[in-house]
């Protein structure tokens, strides 16, 4: 870290840690409800827990992306952030908006649209907040000493993410139209522009951690994000099979979304290849583990498990079952949660001057959380497949099937406990590293070897 203003990133990362922890609490509430223990129903009914769980997830990931941008952009552009005060203000406003939304959910104040539950007046605040963020990093890049591909990919990913929030706000009376626009946000985020953000952050981390030549890394970055959009844009069609839209989406969506795993596979091969090629042994092995882990787990969760239910013949029976929850967990974890964990693990020693990344706790956090998440995915998978067979294929009553699969939610709770232990270890390392100090002197600026 070379610039004073990069310090702001720490506050965003601390926000991530807080919201993430809270997200897990609500996850447990839902898992217990599924297992037949809904003692909290009178205070936090399932729909409240769910909206809180998923909105906290999106909120902490966005805070993580913003923190990552505030860390990466000054370094890539070789100048201080344009308006550090605006970054602080913008973080405060984001947290205030988020907390208001979460409290509102508990009082039946929301829009019943999955993932976009935030009530309309708060939507506008989110948009203004994100625009302030975009302006801040945009001006920094503009006034910077160099304009790298990595910073541009990251910037456009964030800009497009902000713009794509808008279709979700188009008012309509028709449920089909409502759902059509909702996917422009949800799908085009996670299977489109967020992948640009992922590509940008991973490229930065790989340049720093492996020492492979920037030109080579950035060239392949273009190829991978090229594949992302080639498949991901028309791949939106895999959500338009059965919602009252024309039949041609069955083959458009089926064909293009079936190609989406290629981009994720590309990302995994790219990260592993660069790590092998790099002659440099960066001391932060944990950050490298999270970076490569991110690319591999996103291929498994998004690519492989996404493909498993994306063909229309399969989706007819799995649509809207726990199979989707299985995929949703591993995909969000691999692609985006691990990405934020990677950038935090990388930047923390450089922000605080205390390097605990090679401690036993840091290694433990990586393995325990990942093994826990794999076990959670298996529990969801068994519950989901059983539900599909009994309810969708054999026609048993919904509730009868749910009591049949209750036991798998006890499995989920066990797995989630393991996962949570891993996350607590990560949090412990974060807290022990202390508060951010000024620029930390570390040999971390330029690649030592050229491939």
């Amino acid at each position, binding site marked *: 870290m070379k610039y004073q203003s990069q310090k702001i990133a720490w506050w965003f990362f601390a926000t991530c840690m807080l919201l993430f922890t809270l997200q897990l609490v609500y996850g447990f509430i*839902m898992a217990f*409800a*599924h297992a037949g223990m*809904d003692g909290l*129903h009178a205070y936090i*009914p*399932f*729909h409240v827990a*769910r*909206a809180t769980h998923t909105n906290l997830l999106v909120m902490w990931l966005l805070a993580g992306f913003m923190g990552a941008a505030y860390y990466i952009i000054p370094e890539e552009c070789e100048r201080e952030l344009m308006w550090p005060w605006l970054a602080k203000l913008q973080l405060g406003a984001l947290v205030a908006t988020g907390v208001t939304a979460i409290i509102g959910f508990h009082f*039946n104040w929301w*829009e*019943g649209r*999955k993932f976009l*539950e935030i009530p309309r007046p708060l939507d506008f605040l989110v948009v203004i907040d994100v625009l302030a963020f975009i302006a801040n990093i945009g001006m920094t890049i503009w006034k910077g000493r160099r304009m790298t591909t990595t910073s541009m990919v990251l910037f456009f990913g964030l800009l497009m993410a902000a713009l794509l929030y808008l279709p979700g706000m188009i008012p309509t*009376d*028709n*449920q*089909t139209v409502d*759902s*059509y626009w*909702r996917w422009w946000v949800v799908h085009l985020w996670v299977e489109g522009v967020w992948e640009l953000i992922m590509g940008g952050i991973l490229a930065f981390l790989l340049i720093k951690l492996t020492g492979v030549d920037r*030109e080579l890394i950035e*060239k*392949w970055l*273009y*190829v991978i*994000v*090229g594949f992302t*959009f*080639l498949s991901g*844009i*028309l791949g939106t*069609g895999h959500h*338009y*099979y*059965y*919602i*009252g*839209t*024309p*039949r*041609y989406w*069955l083959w458009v969506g089926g064909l293009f979304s079936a190609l989406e795993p290629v981009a994720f596979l590309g990302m995994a091969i790219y990260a592993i290849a660069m790590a092998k090629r790099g002659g440099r042994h960066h001391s932060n092995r944990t950050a490298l583990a999270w970076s490569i882990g991110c690319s591999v787990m996103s291929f498994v969760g998004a690519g492989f498990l996404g493909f498993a239910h994306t063909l229309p013949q399969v989706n*007819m*029976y799995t*649509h*809207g079952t726990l199979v*989707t*929850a299985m995929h949703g967990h591993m995909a969000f974890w691999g692609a985006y949660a691990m990405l934020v964990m990677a950038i935090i693990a990388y930047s923390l020693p450089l922000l605080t001057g205390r390097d605990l990344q090679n401690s036993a706790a840091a290694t433990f956090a990586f393995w325990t959380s990942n093994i826990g998440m794999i076990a959670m995915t298996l529990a969801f998978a068994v519950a989901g497949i059983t*539900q599909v067979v009994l*309810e*969708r*294929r*054999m*026609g048993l*009553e*919904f*509730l*009868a099937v749910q009591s049949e699969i209750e036991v798998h939610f006890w499995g989920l709770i066990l797995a989630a406990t393991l996962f949570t232990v891993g996350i607590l270890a990560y949090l412990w390392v974060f807290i022990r590293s202390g508060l951010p100090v000024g620029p930390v002197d570390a040999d971390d600026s330029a690649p030592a070897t050229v491939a």
Partner: protein
Amino acid sequence: MLSKSQARAFFFVGTGLCALAFVGLTVDTFGKIPAQTGQAQLTEQVIRGKDLWDHNNCMGCHTLLGEGAYYAPELTKVIDRRGPVFVAAMLRDPQAMYPGQRKMQQYNFNEAEIGDLVAFLSWIGKVDTNGFPAKPPLAQGNVGPAANRPVVFQQLCTACHSLGGVGGNVGPALDGVGKKFDAAYIGKWLEDPAAVKPGTKMPKLPLTADQIHELTTFLGSQGK
């Protein structure tokens, strides 16, 4: 070998073409949605129902058009499956309709609001969803006896009772019930279960005299 500028060109051309195709398909889709969803039947009442659906976040437990949460039944075809009478009773008092089961939120809707929600669910049930949800291909009930059961039995009673191995498990299975009780008893039971057996979990259902007659005839013959 591929150069960086070629890689960049691949990115921009590919993305541009796909985005263009996507916008084109979207325009075409919006031309077709009104006919496919029955936009003309979107009455004031249906729209009020959709607003209630949104503002109460029913999607936080249920799926509709296969989207939402996985805690409660898929509702796109609920009016076909259960009929408007059952759905209205459910919205009036969810706990009474599924005693001792997983809990639905008690909203205390008034009758007008219940009418709006039922209208909304009836409208969505007629949207052409390209065949979703599919008929269960391995179901036993698709062939044989299910065909000649009274409609009211299929809609109201199978939510809680099974017959021939198909149906809910809130109440006891009704196989052979005609051997257990005579038609007169079943008739009295259906008029008001609590009057026959105080504290029972079976709710008093909104049945007409004709329906009770139809049901007693049907159930009285089970197991004979």
